[in-house]
């Protein structure tokens, strides 16, 4: 039986998908599964039963944002495409890695995309800073796509707006330090070196910035 997820969402916002009270042992009747409207958790269970349409449905929902996270982190369209493919193939091969009891599927999926991108950056010695920028290369932003076509945009638009606004409230220096750590995979010491700032200053920026983000998003 479906229920809205927002009740237990600490952010007080919800992704436009539903969670369901269903265990991994519960049967999934593939013949009656409505892929377009099925909850993420149900589709993951169907993937465990090797249902390719379930993976396709999750890709239709979240393919763009997974690609966007990879692109933001590595700054290279071809590499972002390869990494996104790996993320979904990993979901196909090991769907049981997602534990519905520990959080939402999209949050988990994006953390897989981020971790994989960080690994790639590190394995390549962080030379991405020299490569092509993501924006002016002709890639179409979803902002220009009608909402009816941008399904994954609709699926996480609420969360994106809330997080975007929360980040916008931070002073520029705090926001930059957090973004360098989160999207760049840099340590505090590396950030201090890159920004030519004392380590203590960077630590303070990260601490204050994240405390404020937590207050806005969680408390």
């Amino acid at each position: 039986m479906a229920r809205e997820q927002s009740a237990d969402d600490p952010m007080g916002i919800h992704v436009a998908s539903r969670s369901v009270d269903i265990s991994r042992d519960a049967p999934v009747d593939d013949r009656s599964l409505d892929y377009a409207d099925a909850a993420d958790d149900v589709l993951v269970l169907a993937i465990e039963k090797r249902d390719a349409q379930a993976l396709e449905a999750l890709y239709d929902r979240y393919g763009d944002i997974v690609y966007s996270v990879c692109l933001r982190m590595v700054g290279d369209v071809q590499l972002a495409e390869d990494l996104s493919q790996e993320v979904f193939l990993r979901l196909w091969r090991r769907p049981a890695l997602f534990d519905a009891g520990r959080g939402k599927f999209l949050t988990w999926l994006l953390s897989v995309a981020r971790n994989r991108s960080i690994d790639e950056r590190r394995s390549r010695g962080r030379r991405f800073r020299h490569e092509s920028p993501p924006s002016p290369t002709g890639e179409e932003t979803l902002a220009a796509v009608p909402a009816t076509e941008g399904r994954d945009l609709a699926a996480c638009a609420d969360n994106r707006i809330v997080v975007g606004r929360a980040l916008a409230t931070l002073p520029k220096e705090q926001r930059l330090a957090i973004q360098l750590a989160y999207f760049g995979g840099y340590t505090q010491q590396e950030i201090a070196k890159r920004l030519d700032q004392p380590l203590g200053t960077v630590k303070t920026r990260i601490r204050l910035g994240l405390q404020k983000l937590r207050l806005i998003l969680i408390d």
Partner: protein
Amino acid sequence: MRCDEVREDVEAFVLGALEPQEARSLEAHLAGCDECARRVDAYRTAVDHLAMSVPLYRAPARLKERIMVGIGAARPAFPHSLVALRWWAGAAAAVLVAFAVGGITWAVILSSEVRDLREDKRQLAELSELDAEQRSALLRLRGDLITARSEQERLVTTLEEQATFLVLALDPDLIPTELEGTQLAPEAGCSYVWSRTQEIGALTCQGLPSTSFSLVYELWVTLGDETIGVGTFLPRTDGTAQLLVKLPAEVPGGMSRIWVTLEQQSQTGETLSSSPGDEVILLPVPPQQAAR
């Protein structure tokens, strides 16, 4: 590590910004301290949502094809036919049992039919397997073709750009402007040429410092009363860069007519800065200096 020390580093830990040794020590503390573990979880929930702040881009259409080919799913669902086959085999077996009760003759005939049915099933399975292998090979080939087509498109774009640079280099009416690095990039230098016949400007730079992932160089021009950002670019690993811009009018030289700045990519990603920032990297060489 004590709890008060953990509190100092918890934010950086959750962001993954601690040095590996610091992170290991904090993890060891968390294993035995529920209060600190709860604190970390609260921050982790906030941090996990940061990924959603990225600018959204449309994934290339071929990505979905690559994934579906990768899982071998871009084919009709065979399980339905196998289910049907199993159903028929089961039904035949049931009929066999019913007739066996009625008489040995019927049983012999029907068992023969079942054997035939099983043989048919085996042959069908072999055919399906063969068919699946062929389909799989074709799909792999299709995936390779898609990748090759993508690479070809990229190469064609690069070649077209290089061809434009070559055509411009041969244009006798080129109008050149030299730009030199400011104190932020003293080693940098660029040549900007504008072709009257083609209404295209070409910027060629060398000695550019590398940028962080969130920064990008932007070329600005002033046409009349309007200042326009005409293009962004990043340097290659050797500090060189090229940029082609479609400009309908000549940009005269002088300190404020054409210049390059370092810009932060916007949070939303839809557009870059609408006006030039303070971090000016390249300015035109003053006319008297250029003449020397």
